[in-house]
């Protein structure tokens, strides 16, 4: 988990208010586990956690983010040739899938880490993809998934693209028609809760979580969410170090507590 200065080699705007920075980082591109993130320096007291959005064969990694505040605005202003100070790769990503089909369920800026997963495993595992967003404008990376030859189910809250509604619609249908398999999801916490509930306890379900972070490396205990301890009792788990990807069985679903 080294600290490094990575050069920006491409600056894209895949959608309004969304920016993807491509960084030169051959070792990261090779070693990265899907779902891992970079803790990126921005001005102020804290870094910003951003998941990797892609890892290319020519040694680049991507960070795709929505501009929501001062930190992401500053990041969006970085230009080709600038260097980003990042701690990466951080956290535990998605596990190597078990045999059988995989469903990737991504919501909004939860989509990017799933694309890394698709890059890594779509060739060896039958993979379906459900992507959702509030509107067509915020549904990123669909073309990237298509370029891997994957079929996509798209949903938007307002019906401006794909099916009107939430990702849970296509998810429920996939669960109904598929035997076994596993579900990997990333998106807003309420979406993850809904996904976990629908998938239930039968099939493996892995979820990439968000929480406000301090250190990003497990030291400060800022980024906790409620998990289940070895004794079946609630215990805090750290998104930065124990996650951000957790088995749904490791998470405590009793209350909304911790769903920032």
């Amino acid at each position, binding site marked *: *988990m*080294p*600290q490094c200065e990575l050069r920006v080699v491409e600056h894209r705007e895949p959608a309004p208010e969304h920016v993807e920075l491509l960084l030169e980082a051959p070792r990261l591109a090779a070693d990265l586990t899907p779902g891992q993130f970079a803790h990126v*320096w921005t001005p*102020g*007291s*804290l*870094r910003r956690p951003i998941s990797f959005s892609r890892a290319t064969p020519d040694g680049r990694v991507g960070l795709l983010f929505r501009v929501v505040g001062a930190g992401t605005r500053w990041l969006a202003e970085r230009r080709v040739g600038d260097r980003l100070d990042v*701690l990466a790769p951080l956290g535990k990503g998605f596990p190597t899938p078990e045999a059988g089909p995989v469903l990737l369920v991504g919501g909004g800026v939860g989509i990017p880490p799933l694309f890394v997963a698709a890059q890594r495993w779509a060739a060896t595992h039958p993979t379906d993809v459900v992507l959702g967003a509030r509107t067509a404008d915020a549904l990123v990376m669909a073309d990237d998934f298509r370029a891997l030859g994957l079929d996509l189910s798209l949903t938007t809250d307002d019906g401006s693209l794909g099916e009107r509604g939430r990702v849970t619609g296509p998810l429920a249908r996939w669960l109904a028609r598929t035997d076994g398999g596993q579900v990997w999801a990333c998106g807003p916490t309420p979406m993850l809760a809904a996904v976990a509930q629908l998938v239930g306890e039968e099939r493996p379900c892995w979820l990439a979580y968000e*929480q*406000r*972070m*301090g*250190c*990003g*490396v*497990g*030291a*400060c*205990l*800022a*980024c*906790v*969410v409620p998990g289940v301890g070895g004794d079946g009792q609630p215990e*805090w788990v750290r998104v930065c*170090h124990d996650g951000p990807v957790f088995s749904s069985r490791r998470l405590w679903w009793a209350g909304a*507590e*911790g769903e*920032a």
Partner: protein
Amino acid sequence: MDLATRVGAVRLANPVLAASGTFGFGPEYDGLVDVAQLGGVAVKGISPEPWRGNPPPRVWETPSGLLNSIGLQNPGVERFLSEDLPYLRDRGATVVVNIIGRTEDEYAAVARRLDGERGVQALELNISCPNIKQGGIQFGHDPAQASSVTRAVKAATALPVWVKLSPNTHNLAGMARAVAAAGADAISAINTLVGMAIDLEHRRPALGGVTGGLSGPAIRPIAVRAVWEVSQAVDIPVVGMGGIETATDVVEFLLAGASAVMVGTATFSRPNAMATIIRELPDVLARYGFDSVRAAIGAAHPGRWPA
């Protein structure tokens, strides 16, 4: 340039320690920070039994500052000793164990358990954390209680005891005198200030714990004043902290009267902050005319003002 300093009987190769709660127990920063090169490491506050801490969100950024409401989550002294201490001990780090309790007895219990433990160089009594509702905090502004808990801890251990003061009082000098009289070997100043922020979108406090502790450069002027005041009120050494980011900041604390300093929040943004400070400190000391860390301690105190 001689960077060595002392906090009472504890000798430090350099004056830069990691501040409690911001550096975990060391292994989290493995590969980023070489703990043996630091002046020392103050570990996360340790209680007799594990504490759960506060609901998230637990951090929130503010202008030049950081609010946190971790709530002193920690594994308890037994797991600390078996699982966490070995990393630092094996690397030869100077370890200061920050201790917390709900009652005087709990403080004393942790102190007693740590007494004689190999690899622990000092205890830091956190009587000042603003993030727990019962216990801890009330010691933070009552000289009589602070004195009493200090005495209880001193009686329970042969280790040097540093008492960490809260800035959330008007009577810092009085608190310092009380704990010094009770046998404290040094004073750490300061812990965080009680603050809060509102999450406008959700119309509620931004932190799960409602209020939190403010740290970072925003509080540096308050910390410098605290070190100034305390170091002139008592004869025991002061370990200064609050918003330190650079070697220049360290020199400011030394001149205000600190014998050593701790770096907390800055590590989140720049894990190499402490290493950079230690590397640059000799040049900065020299620039202001000092040939050692010791020469700079208290050099801005009234008796020593240049004509």
